[in-house]
C-alpha cells in the first residue's frame, strides 16, 4: 500500500478523523476508524467503522476510471442499503457514501482468527481448518454461506464477485455467521443466467483457492443454497431447479473455454 494514497485519504477526510489502513484489495483500500461519519462521538471508545476507498486507477483511461468508480461505489451503496433490510440476510450496514470520490463508510465486521491466521474471512477460516477440514464447524459454516447466497439470489440480487475472501465470518457465541461483503460488481437481476454465473464464479474460486477439499466445500455450500430455496415452498423448489440447471450449463461452457492460440 503506497503512502501516497493514505495521505490523499487523510487530506480528504481532514485531520480529525483517525484512519488505520487494514488491507489493499484489488479495487479498494480499506481503513478502520473510530469516528462515525455524522453521529457525535460517544464515550465508548471501542467502536469501530470501516472506510472503503476506491482510489483512481492510473493504468486505465481517466474516462473509464471515473465512470467505473462512480458506478461501483453508488451501486454498492444502493445494494447494501436494500440488502440490509432483508430478514435473514447479513451484510454490513451502510453509514455514508460519496460516489464521486469513491468513499463508503460501513459498520465494522469480523475479528482476528486465533493462532495468527489473520482476519476472519472465509478464506482464512478454511485455511485455519486445513488440517481437519471435515469437522462439523466447517460444514455448518459453509452450509450457512450457502443459505446466504440462496437468500441473495431468491431476492433477485447477484453478487458478481463471490470468492472466499468476500465472505466475512462474525462470531456469535460458538458459531460463525457469514456476512457477504464487497458488492461493487453486484446487480439486481432476475435472470437465471446471472445467478448461474455467480455460482460458477464461486465454485471456481473455491476450486482454485482451496483445491484440496474443494469438492466437499462446494457440496456443503450447495446444500445450504438448496435449503434456502426449499424453505420458500413449491415456488422455491421450482426456481432452485432452474438456477441449478443453468449453473450446470454455465459450467459446461466454462470447461469448453480452451481452444487455440
Amino acid at each position, binding site marked *: 500500500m503506497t503512502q501516497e494514497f493514505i495521505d490523499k485519504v487523510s487530506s480528504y477526510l481532514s485531520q480529525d478523523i483517525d484512519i488505520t489502513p487494514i488491507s489493499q484489495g484489488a479495487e479498494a483500500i480499506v481503513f478502520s476508524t473510530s469516528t462515525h461519519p455524522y453521529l457525535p462521538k460517544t464515550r465508548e471508545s471501542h467502536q469501530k467503522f470501516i472506510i472503503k476507498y476506491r482510489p483512481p486507477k492510473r*493504468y486505465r483511461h481517466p474516462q473509464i476510471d471515473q465512470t467505473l468508480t462512480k458506478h461501483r461505489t453508488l451501486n454498492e451503496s444502493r445494494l447494501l442499503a436494500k440488502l440490509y433490510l432483508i430478514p435473514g440476510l447479513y451484510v454490513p450496514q451502510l453509514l455514508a457514501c460519496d460516489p464521486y470520490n469513491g468513499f463508503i463508510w460501513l459498520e465494522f465486521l469480523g475479528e482476528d482468527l486465533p493462532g495468527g491466521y489473520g482476519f476472519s474471512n472465509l478464506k482464512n477460516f478454511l485455511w485455519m481448518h486445513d488440517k481437519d477440514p471435515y469437522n462439523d464447524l466447517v460444514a455448518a459454516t459453509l452450509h450457512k454461506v450457502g443459505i446466504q447466497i440462496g437468500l441473495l439470489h431468491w431476492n433477485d440480487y447477484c453478487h458478481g464477485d463471490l470468492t472466499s475472501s468476500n465472505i466475512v465470518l462474525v462470531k456469535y457465541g460458538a458459531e460463525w455467521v457469514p456476512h457477504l461483503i464487497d458488492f461493487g460488481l453486484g446487480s439486481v437481476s432476475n435472470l437465471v443466467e446471472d445467478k448461474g454465473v455467480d455460482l460458477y464464479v464461486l465454485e471456481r474460486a473455491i476450486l482454485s483457492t482451496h483445491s484440496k477439499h474443494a469438492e466437499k466445500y462446494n457440496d456443503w455450500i450447495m446444500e445450504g443454497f438448496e435449503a434456502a430455496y426449499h424453505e420458500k415452498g413449491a415456488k422455491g423448489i421450482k426456481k432452485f431447479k432452474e438456477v441449478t440447471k443453468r449453473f450446470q450449463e454455465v459450467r459446461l461452457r466454462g470447461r469448453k473455454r480452451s481452444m487455440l492460440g
Partner: protein
Amino acid sequence: MVNLNTIPPKNNRDFYIAIGLEGSANKLGVGIVKHPLLPKHANSDLSYDCGAEMLSNIRDTYMTPPGEGFLPRDTARHHRNWCVRLIKQAMAEAGIKDPTLDVDVICFTRGPGMGAPLHSVVIAARTCSLLWDVPLVGVNHCIGHIEMGREITKAQNPVVLYVSGGNTQVIAYSEKRYRIFGETLDIAIGNCLDRFARTLKIPNEPSPGYNIEQLAKKAPHKDSLVELPYTVKGMDLSMSGILASVDLLAKDLFKCNKKNKILFDKKTGEQKVTVEDLCYSLQENLFAMLVEITERAMAHVNSNQVLIVGGVGCNVRLQEMMAQMCKDRANGQIHATDNRFCIDNGVMIAQAGLLEYRMGGIVKDFSETIVTQKFRTDEVYAAWRD
C-alpha cells in the same frame, strides 16, 4: 523438493538437448533448447532457472489477405509444407549433426489448438521419433508459454496473464497445478482484436493486433473515448459484446450513417470519431479489463509478481498499463518478454517438454500422442514444481 536430474542426458553428455515443434494455430515453430546438467537441480525448486540456452528459434507464420482469417485446412497445409524445411534449418543452426546421438527428446504441442494444424505437426514429431529413435513428450501449449516466460524473466512464482488469439486466462500456481483463476467466458482477446481487424480490412502482416496497436497510437481524440461495454464478472470477463458493439460502430462509420450520434455530430453531421479512435477505445477498454482481473487475482492469492505471456503480451500499451498497476501495489513487479518468446514458438514447447522429460515423463506408446483441441491448463500435473 524436486529432482530435475532424474533421467541423465544421453551418451554421458553434461547437457540436455530438446527439439520443440509447435503448430497449434497459424504459426509453425521449431526450437532447440539446451539445458546444462547442474548438481543444484538435483534437489531444488529451480525450474525457473535452468540456465537454458536457445540454440535456434525459427518460426514461419501462415499469412492470409486482409479481411480474412486462417482456416484450419489451409493452415494445416502450410504446416505440412514447411515442417521438414524448418526442422532441417533449426538443426543446422543449432549445429546438430547426428540427431540420433545428440537429441534427448522431441517435444510437440498436444493441445489446445486447431485440430488439423496440430495433427500435421504431430505426424512430423512421430516420424522424427521413429527415424532417430528419440523419445517423445506431449506439451500443453499454455504450460509452454508459462515455463518459457518464467525461464526468460526468472520470475519465481508469478500470477500469469496468458493472453493470445485463443486464450485469455489468469493463472496462478498452487499444489502441483497451474490453476485458472479467471478467464474469458466467450471469445479470447486476440480473437476479438483479430476479428475487429478483419472488419476494418487492415493487413494481417505482421499481425492484426500489432496493426491495431499502431493505429491506436495515431488516434486524434485520445481524451474522449468511445463508450464500450465494460464486462468484468468477478475474475472472469466477457468480450463478445464489446466486439459486437465496436463492429457495429465501424460498419456505421464506413457506411457514413449520419443517424449514429456517437460517430457524427447531431446538428452539423460532422464526423467525431475516426477508425483510429475506435482502435484506441477498444484497446483501452479491453486492456483495462485485463489489468483489473489480474489485479483481482493478485489480491486474492497475495502475490506481487505478474508475468504476461502469449501473443497479445507483446502489446506495449498492455505492458505499460500492467506496469502502472504494479507500481501502485506494494512491491509490485512486472515481467514481460518480447515477441521472440511471446508469440507462439518452438522453444517454449522444448522448454516445457524438457522439464517434463527430466522428471521422467515420456510417451511410452504412440496412442498417448493423440492431439486434442481441448486441453485445459489445470489438467497438467506440474511435476517439476514445488
